[in-house]
């Protein structure tokens, strides 16, 4: 197991190196002069141009520029946003909890519905409930979520008028963030009407974002269960006279969950990609919308740092999933 973890850690290093090169290269690959691109439409005077060139180190050789960039990143300096003039890291830390909160709620939805649905479908293999569930899962898996989000708005916000169209909480509420998670902060302050508002804002984006992971988890759970249900130890458990519910719920599920846990972890990348679309549709103030807005505002410092930070998060989570997989899988022990 330790060799496996060590192996994964060793692979982590070159990939880390690679993503910093990608982020570094991004600004330099943009068409045109990077300083002019950063200066935007207003342009710069020749003197200011030289100052900026000096400031960003564009007069240095490429490898020195790269080292300088890595040095900045390692000290947590991700530059200053061109559009807001605030440090990118500050902006990231303000917006990141919104994305995390949305992702967690979406993932909880996906797990709470997806795993039971997969188990049930496997237990009833070949019957119409199985076909119905797996058919629905495939529809979810094929869903263009930007359209799905719009449909949810049309139906629940427009037609039924149950939920707000966009944003994270009603405008009349303001909280100094404690955890940054509004569903928790509102409860800490004891403002239940604000909690309700936050929850109402959360529901539709969470459904939109959770749909694809839900479908993937349901399909994966079903196939993992089917595989496990064919094993000898399940036959033994049945032969012992255990109730079907116990055989499926305890003996089979425990083992089937091992690959499912990996699948769940690997959805982080999917969630981040989904957040870009979901947040854009629901005007959710998270890092996905931030990235898209920054691309359109040509705020390339933000895009560069966002790219690096998001990739870093996805990589770290995937590494943790790999380690977790080694820890929970009895076959990997020893």
């Amino acid at each position: 197991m330790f060799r496996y973890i060590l192996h994964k850690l060793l692979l982590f290093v070159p990939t880390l190196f690679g993503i910093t090169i990608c982020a570094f290269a991004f600004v330099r690959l943009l068409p045109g002069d990077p300083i002019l691109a950063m200066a935007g439409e207003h342009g710069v005077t020749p003197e200011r141009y030289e100052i900026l060139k000096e400031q960003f180190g564009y007069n240095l050789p490429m490898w020195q520029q790269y080292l300088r960039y890595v040095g900045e990143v390692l000290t947590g300096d991700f530059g200053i946003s061109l559009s807001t003039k605030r440090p990118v890291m500050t902006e990231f830390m303000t917006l990141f909890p919104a994305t995390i909160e949305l992702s967690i709620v979406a993932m909880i939805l996906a797990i709470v519905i997806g795993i039971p649905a997969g188990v049930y479908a496997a237990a009833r293999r070949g019957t119409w409930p199985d076909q119905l569930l797996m058919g629905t899962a495939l529809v979810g898996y094929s869903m263009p979520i930007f359209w799905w989000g719009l449909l949810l708005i049309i139906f629940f916000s427009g037609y039924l008028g149950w939920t707000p169209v966009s944003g994270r909480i009603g405008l009349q509420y303001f909280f100094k963030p404690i955890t940054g998670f509004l569903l928790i902060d509102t409860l800490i302050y004891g403002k239940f009407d604000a909690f309700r508002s936050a929850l109402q804002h959360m529901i539709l984006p969470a459904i939109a974002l959770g749909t694809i992971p839900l479908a993937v988890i349901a399909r994966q759970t079903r196939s993992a269960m089917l595989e496990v249900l064919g094993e000898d130890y399940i036959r033994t458990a049945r032969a012992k006279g255990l109730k079907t519910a116990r055989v499926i719920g305890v003996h089979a599920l425990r083992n089937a969950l091992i690959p499912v846990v990996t699948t769940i972890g690997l959805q982080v990348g999917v969630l981040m990609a989904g957040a870009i679309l979901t947040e854009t549709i629901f005007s959710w103030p998270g890092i996905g919308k931030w990235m898209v807005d920054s691309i359109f505002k040509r705020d390339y410092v933000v895009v560069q740092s966002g790219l690096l930070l998001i990739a870093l998060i996805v990589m770290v989570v995937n590494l943790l999933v790999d380690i977790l997989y080694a820890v929970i899988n009895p076959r990997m022990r020893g």
Partner: protein
Amino acid sequence: MAEIATQGPMPSRFPGLREFWYYFSMNKGAVIGLAVFTFMVLAAFTAPIFAPHEPYAQYRDAFLAPPVWYEGGSWKFILGTDAVGRDILSRLLYGAQFSLLIGAVVVTISLVVGIGLGLVAGYFRGWIDVAISRVMDIILAFPSLLLALVMVTILGPSLFNAMLAIALVLVPHFARLVRAAVMAEKNKEYIAASKVAGAGSLRLMFLTILPNCLAPLIVQATLSFSNAILEAAALGFLGLGAQPPTPEWGTMLATAREFILRAPWVVTFPGLAILITVLAINLMGDGLRDALDPKLKRS
């Protein structure tokens, strides 16, 4: 894995067409998917004949006209019109051309590049394998849509650049698949036999090993086809893919966004077209997986 044993003999090599069809047609969903997909292809090719209107023609007297079954709808615009009076049905039919083009181009590029890289990495191993594998890891470290977004930012927003970006994002899936398959096949006896018979590296790679990795590749290509359509539509929706007034489905959705509450049909049909196409292809993919490779069988 016990279930597979009950399914009768399954040839490990590329099965004959009749045998393939036998297993494929056992999966009802796959047959439906194939039928829908065939219909899409026909729709794309016959759009100039059957589309009731020109996709770019604007009818000034019919902005946001509702579909025929709504009150005030007419047979002139069966699925209604958009905000500048263009017939939605006609645009959808022409849009099918774009989606199929996107799928075909993206899959071709990523398949060719992925097979090349995977073969080289799996066959030669050593430093070149390390280099290729690490680059693939790096591409996979980024969420696919984010990487595609950034690529398009560099290249400039257009349908072609969107296709290039998506193709790049999909390459690692093919490369990894081929690499793993090559490594599994490489030490088998038939490879040793061809080597002894004097086959060169290129012949071994392309003519001896590659045909044995075809089954999972076909499945992966199918899934990538639907993925490409989804991602291209997402880029179009964000305004970084095909540019208006191109009748690409995602781009159509982007321009329709502000009318979602006033004229839901403008939003509903392009998305439905994306969903149906992607679903049909994924259904086929499931069927292909069952028919071609029992080891990949999941459902």
